[in-house]
């Protein structure tokens, strides 16, 4: 919504539209599940009957990143998996958020010193919500989702400079530079 993001002064029409859009976005956050390890079981349990994330509108786990808003990282990011997470994040349409779930995604957790692990999701992706736990209880992830919802509803988008289309991780580890560059090549800004 370029109109709202590039507006300088908020006026009456834009604020009402902006409030409406924020309400809509916060009530319909669809997941993109990168399903990596133990925490993805607790995420599946959260979709189950007892905790049921569909109550707040985010029950749809969209298979394709194109139709999802929140990228969940439920487990460790290994160096072999990192470029794929970056590619999935880049494929998601723009108002998108990332939830780092569990100690492995926050700081590498029990496998911090391993040779094949990145030290947490924020070395690879811009993370919005950190949910501690190992594994994270479904209620704790639900609380993380509620906090993200409150933030999405709270932050106004007026004057928010449009984010650059392609996310390139800051210190690109040498071993998977080719992968992301090859992906960047085929996906010019649109």
């Amino acid at each position: 919504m370029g109109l709202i993001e590039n507006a300088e002064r908020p006026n009456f029409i834009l604020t009402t539209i902006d409030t409406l859009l924020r309400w809509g976005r916060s009530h319909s956050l669809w997941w993109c599940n990168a399903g990596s390890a133990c925490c993805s079981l607790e995420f599946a349990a959260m979709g189950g009957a007892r905790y049921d994330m569909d109550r707040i509108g985010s029950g749809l786990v969209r298979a394709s990143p194109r139709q999802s808003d929140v990228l969940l990282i439920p487990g460790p990011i290994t160096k072999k998996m990192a470029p794929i997470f970056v590619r999935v994040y880049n494929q998601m349409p723009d108002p998108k958020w990332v939830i780092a779930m569990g100690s492995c995604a926050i700081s590498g957790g029990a496998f911090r010193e391993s040779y094949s692990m990145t030290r947490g999701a924020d070395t690879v992706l811009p993370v919005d919500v950190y949910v501690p736990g190992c594994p994270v209880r479904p209620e704790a992830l639900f609380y993380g989702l509620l906090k993200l919802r409150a933030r999405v509803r709270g932050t106004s988008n007026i004057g928010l400079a449009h984010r650059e289309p392609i996310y390139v991780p800051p210190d690109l580890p040498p071993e998977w530079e080719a992968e992301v560059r090859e992906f960047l090549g085929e996906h010019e800004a649109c």
Partner: protein
Amino acid sequence: MIEDHPRVGRLQKDAVTESIVLNMGPQHPSMHGVFHMQLELSGETILAARPVIGYLHRGIEKLAEHRTYAQCMVLVDRLDYISQYCNEWAYCRAIERLARIEVPERAEWLRTMYAELVRVTSHLMWFGSVGLDLGGWTPVIYAFIPRERIFDFFEATTGSRLMPNYLRFGGVKEDVDPAEMEALHAYLAKDLIDALDEFDGLVTGNEIFLSRQRGLAPMTVDQAHAWGVTGPMLRACGSTRDLRIDTPYGVYDRLDWESCTDTRGDALARYSVRMREMRESAKMALQCIERMPAGEVRTKVARVLRPPEGEVYVRHESTRGELGFHIVSDGSPKPYRFRVRSPAFMNVSSLPHLCAGAKISEFFAIFGGIDNVMAEIDR
């Protein structure tokens, strides 16, 4: 172009239409975690399949060499994160055999009960993923309800739903409070059996399910031995190998149960073996709760264990097959070599042979029957 390779399957040289290579990539809705499958398709038929693993390789075997034996228990929980007590028990048996530690009677009963309960939850998770792979959203949600109830018991007695860190060398951490046992006994006796009957009604008898599973990817016992396949997949082809009977440990020889086998060897046989195993495990857990003797649950072991120098290899019947722990110790408090024989690693290595020539949708029916856990395959 996947080169013409005996291990991968015949390549139709005369395929007129150009075949496309489809990357069922690490991030895929029904890929049970991060499993990457390169399929070469002509139309919908799979010509050749090449699994690529290692996306969840956290180097557990290297990290274990820098931790004491008690701290390795934390890593062992995260190997096969769906059946944790089996991993812990196998690891404890290996160290107890290496350091010659005695385990009291009640601890053996407790360990058997927990292992069978976790087998039920693991097969429930598998049942849910089979339904999800074949396009049904309901089985996974129904399977999670009894699973949550058993997780409540785990959390109340051991402190965590999924990562208990409950077993210790020479027994278990602490005793189980009887009120929780009674509540679980009542649940297992009636509600779990009703839930399992409901699953049979929903999926097992369903003609659509049967048409998709019957006669799919058959496997003979010799093929299974050649590929190293163990566990329910092997028992589905007619072999009676079950480590709980062949090398009795815990109290399996004192419970009355029988190992579930099938002779057809196809995807439907693997499904029915696991569904019957769930009922057997529930029956065993019930008997454990009823016949568990009172007594001590833990022998006194030095807090920093220094097992004598030597090597041990213990085989354990985990939910997916033969889980092996090969520990080499050099007398220091840290293991010298910590090797885990992962059953799912061998079962998945048989996947290219099973699905060569199948259709895309058949591939998912086969893949659902293998019940793999990426954390155990990649370690």
